[in-house]
C-alpha cells in the first residue's frame, strides 16, 4: 500500500466532509438557478496522473472545462475542474433566464463554476479549520489537448493524485456538471494528517 493511499477510516471521513461541502454547493446552485439539484454519492479514488490526463483529454473535445487552482494552510492544495457537456453549456442561458447577448456563454459558465467551486471549497475548508485562496478561474478552449497542456503546466508536480468526482444534476432541466478535484501527492499526505486529527477527536 503506498503512503498516498487512504485508510478506510480516512476515506470515510473525507467522504463525509465532501458530502457536507457538496450539499451546500448544491443548495447554492439550486437557489441560483431556482431549481432542485439531485445529489449522488461522490467518488474518491487514487489515480495515476498520466492515465488520468489521457482519459480527461480524450473526453475533452465534447465538453467545456473551467479550471481553478486552490490552496489553503498546511499545504492543502489542488485544482478544481468543472466540466460541462456541450449540449448543457448551451442550456445555461435558459436556466439563468438571461437574454441572448446579455452575458456570453463563456461568462455564464464562469459564473456557475465559481459558485460551485468556491462554495464547495469554502465549506470543506471551514470543516477542517482551514481557509482557501483561489487562482483566477480559466476557461479552457475547446480544442484538442488544451486540458492536457493546462494540466501539464500546473505549478505542482505529481505522479499520483487523489481524484474526487462530484456530479451536480439539475433534475428539471436535465442539466449536468461534473466537478473533479485533483489533489497532488504532497497535499494528500497533508490531508491525511488533517483527517487523522479529526478521527482522533471522534
Amino acid at each position, binding site marked *: 500500500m503506498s503512503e498516498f493511499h487512504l485508510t478506510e*477510516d480516512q476515506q*470515510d471521513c473525507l467522504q*463525509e466532509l465532501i458530502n*457536507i461541502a457538496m*450539499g*451546500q454547493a448544491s*443548495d447554492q446552485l439550486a437557489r441560483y438557478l431556482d431549481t*432542485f439539484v439531485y445529489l449522488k454519492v461522490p467518488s474518491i479514488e487514487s489515480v495515476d496522473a498520466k492515465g488520468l490526463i489521457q482519459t480527461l483529454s480524450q473526453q475533452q473535445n465534447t465538453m467545456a472545462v473551467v479550471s481553478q487552482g486552490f490552496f489553503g494552510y498546511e499545504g492543502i492544495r489542488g485544482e478544481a475542474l468543472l466540466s460541462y457537456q456541450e449540449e448543457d453549456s448551451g442550456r445555461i442561458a435558459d436556466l439563468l433566464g438571461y437574454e441572448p447577448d446579455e452575458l456570453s456563454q463563456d461568462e455564464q459558465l464562469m459564473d456557475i463554476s465559481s459558485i460551485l467551486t468556491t462554495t464547495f471549497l469554502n465549506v470543506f475548508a471551514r470543516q477542517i479549520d482551514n481557509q482557501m485562496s483561489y487562482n483566477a478561474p480559466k476557461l479552457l478552449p475547446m480544442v484538442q489537448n488544451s486540458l492536457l497542456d493546462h494540466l501539464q503546466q500546473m505549478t505542482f508536480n505529481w505522479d499520483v493524485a487523489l481524484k474526487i468526482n462530484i456530479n451536480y444534476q439539475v433534475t428539471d432541466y436535465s442539466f449536468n456538471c461534473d466537478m473533479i478535484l485533483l489533489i497532488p501527492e504532497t497535499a494528500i499526505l497533508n490531508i491525511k494528517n488533517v483527517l487523522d486529527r479529526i478521527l482522533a477527536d471522534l
Partner: protein
Amino acid sequence: MSPSVLICDDSNMARKQVLRILPEQWKTSVQTASNGAEALTILRDNNIEVLFLDLTMPGIDGIGVLQGIQKLKLNCSVFVISADIQPAMQAKVKALGAKEFMRKPVNADILLNHLQQHGLL
C-alpha cells in the same frame, strides 16, 4: 425506559457523531445500518421507536426508507440528518413523515432539543 434506536448512515463517522450525542442510557439499545436496505430490514423485524436517517446513500436512499416506513405502516419517529439542505428536500422529508430535518454536521444541542420537543427525552 430508553427507546430502541436505529442510526442509518453510509458514513461510519456520521454514525459515531450521532451516537456520541445520545444520552448514556440510550446507548445500549442503539442499532446501526449503513444503507437503506439494511435499515428497512431492521425496521421491519424490530420495534424501532427512533430513527436517525441520512438521505444521500448508495442503493435505497433516505427517501426510499421514508417511503418504506409509510408502506409498512411503522410507528417510528424519524429524524433526518443530511448534507442535502435544499429547502425542497427538507419539505419533501417532512411530507414523507419525518419529524425534523437537521443539517450535517449534526449539532448536539439541536438534536437533544428536538428529542425533547417530541417528548422523547
